[in-house]
C-alpha cells in the first residue's frame, strides 16, 4: 500500500495578542491509500486545525508533512492551490457555499480553476456529483432556498466534483438528522470502496464506527489511534432504522 499522508512532529501555534495558543503539539502518524480514518476529540482539541493542514490550506509552524511523497512546506502557494484543485476534496465545517449562486454553479466552482476542463465537461461532472448526493432535483436552487442538510450535501458534491484522491470532511454530518447522516456515511463508504482515501472529523462515536480507523485528539495531541475491528455498514444501519422515526 502507498502512503498518501505522512506527518512527523507536526506543530501548529497561533499567536493571539501576546499569548501563544498551541493548537497542535507534536503529532505524528501516516495514512495509507484507501484508508477511511475518523478523527475525534473534544471541541477545541485541534481537529479542524489538523484537517486544514492536511488539506494544504494551512501550513504547520513546525514539523514535516509529506503529501503523496511531496513536502507541503516546500510547495509554493500556487502549487498548493493546484494540489487542492486536483487531488483534494474538502468539506468545510460551515458549508461555505457562495450565496446567490445556484447549487450547480457552486459545485462547478473548483472546475472553473482547472484549465483542462471545458464548460461542457464542467456541467456534466457537476451534475454527476449532485446526482451522487441525491440532489439532482435541486440544481438550480440557491443556498438560501435549501435546507441545512441539502446545503451540506451541495458542499459534499463540490468536494467530489474534481474526482479527488483524498477527501477531507470536517463534521460533514454535524447538522444532519440520523437518517440523513447515515445516508451520507453510506456514500462515503461507497467512495472509500471505490478507492478514495477519506479523513473524516466527527464528534459522534456511532459515525466513527463506520470508518476503518479512529484517531482521537486531546489538547493537540494524539491520545488514541486504533483500527476498527469490524466497521459497521451504513446501508445496514440505515435499513434497521425505524421507518417512521421522522414523524
Amino acid at each position: 500500500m502507498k502512503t498518501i499522508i505522512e506527518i512527523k512532529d507536526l506543530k501548529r501555534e497561533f499567536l493571539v495578542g501576546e499569548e501563544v495558543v498551541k493548537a497542535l503539539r507534536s503529532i505524528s502518524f501516516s495514512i495509507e491509500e484507501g484508508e477511511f480514518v475518523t478523527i475525534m476529540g473534544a471541541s477545541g482539541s485541534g481537529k479542524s486545525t489538523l484537517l486544514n493542514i492536511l488539506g494544504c490550506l494551512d501550513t504547520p509552524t513546525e514539523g514535516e508533512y509529506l503529501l503523496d511523497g511531496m513536502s507541503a512546506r516546500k510547495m509554493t502557494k500556487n502549487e498548493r492551490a493546484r494540489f487542492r484543485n486536483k487531488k483534494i476534496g474538502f468539506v468545510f465545517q460551515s458549508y461555505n457555499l457562495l450565496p446567490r449562486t445556484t447549487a450547480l454553479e457552486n459545485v462547478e466552482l473548483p472546475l472553473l480553476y482547472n484549465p483542462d476542463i471545458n464548460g461542457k465537461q464542467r456541467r456534466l461532472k457537476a451534475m454527476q456529483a449532485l446526482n451522487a448526493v441525491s440532489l439532482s432535483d435541486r440544481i438550480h436552487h440557491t443556498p438560501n432556498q435549501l435546507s441545512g442538510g441539502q446545503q451540506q450535501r451541495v458542499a459534499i458534491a463540490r468536494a467530489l466534483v474534481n474526482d479527488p484522491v483524498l477527501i477531507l470532511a470536517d463534521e460533514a454530518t454535524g447538522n444532519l438528522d440520523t437518517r440523513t447522516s447515515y445516508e451520507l456515511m453510506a456514500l462515503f463508504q461507497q467512495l472509500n470502496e471505490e478507492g478514495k482515501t477519506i479523513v473524516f472529523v466527527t464528534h459522534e462515536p456511532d459515525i466513527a464506527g463506520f470508518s476503518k480507523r479512529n484517531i482521537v485528539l486531546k489538547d493537540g495531541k494524539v491520545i488514541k489511534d486504533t483500527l476498527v475491528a469490524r466497521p459497521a455498514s451504513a446501508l445496514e444501519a440505515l435499513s434497521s432504522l425505524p421507518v417512521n422515526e421522522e414523524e
Partner: protein
Amino acid sequence: MQVKNLIKIAFKAIGTNKLRSFLTMLGIIIGVASVIAMLAIGQGSSQSITSGISDMGSNMMIIMPGSENFRGLRMGPSNIQSLTVKDYKDLKDKATYLSAVSPVTNGGGQAIYGSNNWPVSILGANTDILSIRKYKIKSGDMFTERDVIASAKVCVIGKTIVDNLFVNGEDPIGKTVRFNKIPFKVIGVLTTKGENTMGQDQDDVIISPYTTVQKRITANTYLQSIFASAVSENMSDKAAEEITAILRQNHKIKAGDEDDFSVRSQQELIKTLSSTSQILTVLLAIIAGISLLVGGIGIMNIMYVSVTERTREIGLRIAVGAQTNNVLYQFLFESVLLSFTGGLIGITLGVATSFIIKSILQWPITVSTYSILLSFAVCTFTGIFFGWYPARKASRLDPIEALRYE
C-alpha cells in the same frame, strides 16, 4: 482560467449589485461625458473662430499709422497722419509679396435716401478692396479705376444699407443716396456676408473711391489705413517684412528707430485667438480630467468594499484551487468592466449632450474621434490603475483567515 469564465464571474458580480455598480460608474460617466462635451465645445469654438477669420480674408494685412506701445495697444492712430497715398502707391508698385493693395479712408455720417436715413461710415478704397475683404458684387457693378481717378461720386452698398434705406423693396441700382449731403450714385450691391467672428455686421457698408471720400467727406490727404492681401497665407510674414522695409524707407526712419506705423496680418490674429481658445480647451480638459480622477477613486473605493465584503468568497475560491492570478484578474477585470461600461455610457451621453447644445444653443461644436479614443483609453487605464490595489489585496488573502472572516 479561461477568459470566458473570468468575464462570466465579473458580469455576475456586477449584476448582483446593480444599483451600486451604477452609482460607482456614475463618477466615470459624468467625467467622460464632460470631457467629451467640453472638448467638443472648445474645439468647435476654436474652429469657428479660425473659419470666421478666413472668411474675412485669411491673407489680409492691415497697415495702420502710429506705432504699437509696449502693451500692443495703439496710441491714438487717427491722430497720427503718417500714412499717405504715396505709401500706398509705392507698396502697389514695389511689393512683390502682395497680390492686392487698397488705401482706406473712412468718413462717418448719415446716409439718406428719401425719408429714410441710416448712420454709417463710408469706406473709401480702390477696386482691390473687394478681393481683399472677400466681398462680391451681387447686382450692378463695382466702380472702376477710372472712377477712382476721376473721384466719381459713386458707391456700392451692402445688404444692411439696402434694407434700411430702400424699405419698399425698390432696386437701389441707379438711385442716388446722399451721404453728408453729398449725392452718391449706387452702382452695385454686395452679396450678403453676415456677422464676422467679433459680431460686426459686415453688410453694414458703403464703399466709394478713396479719392472721392478724401475730397468730399474727410477733406484731407492722409490715409487711415492700407489694406492688402499677401499672395498666400504662408507669405504673410514675408509680406509684413517687405511692407515694413518699404514704408521705413518712405518715412526716412533711421535704423534702430521705431516704426511710425504697424503691420498686422490675419494670421497673427488667428494665432492669438486660437491660442486663447486652446487655453480654454486645456482648462476644460483639466476640469474634466479631475472629475475622471474622482470617478476612478470612486471605483477604487467600491472595489475595496467589494473585496472586504466578499472575503469569504475569495477565501473559498482560493481554497478550491484558484491561483493568485485568477483572483487578481477577476477583480481587475471587474473594475475595468465597471470603468469601461461607465466610459461607454459617458461617451454616449457626452456626444448626445454636445449635439443637444449644438441644436438648442446654436453653438459651434465639433466632436472629435480623438477625444472619444482618449476617453476609452483613460477609462481602461483608470480601471486597471484603481482596481489594481484592491485586486492585489484580494489575491493575497490567506484562505483559512478569509474563510473565518465575519
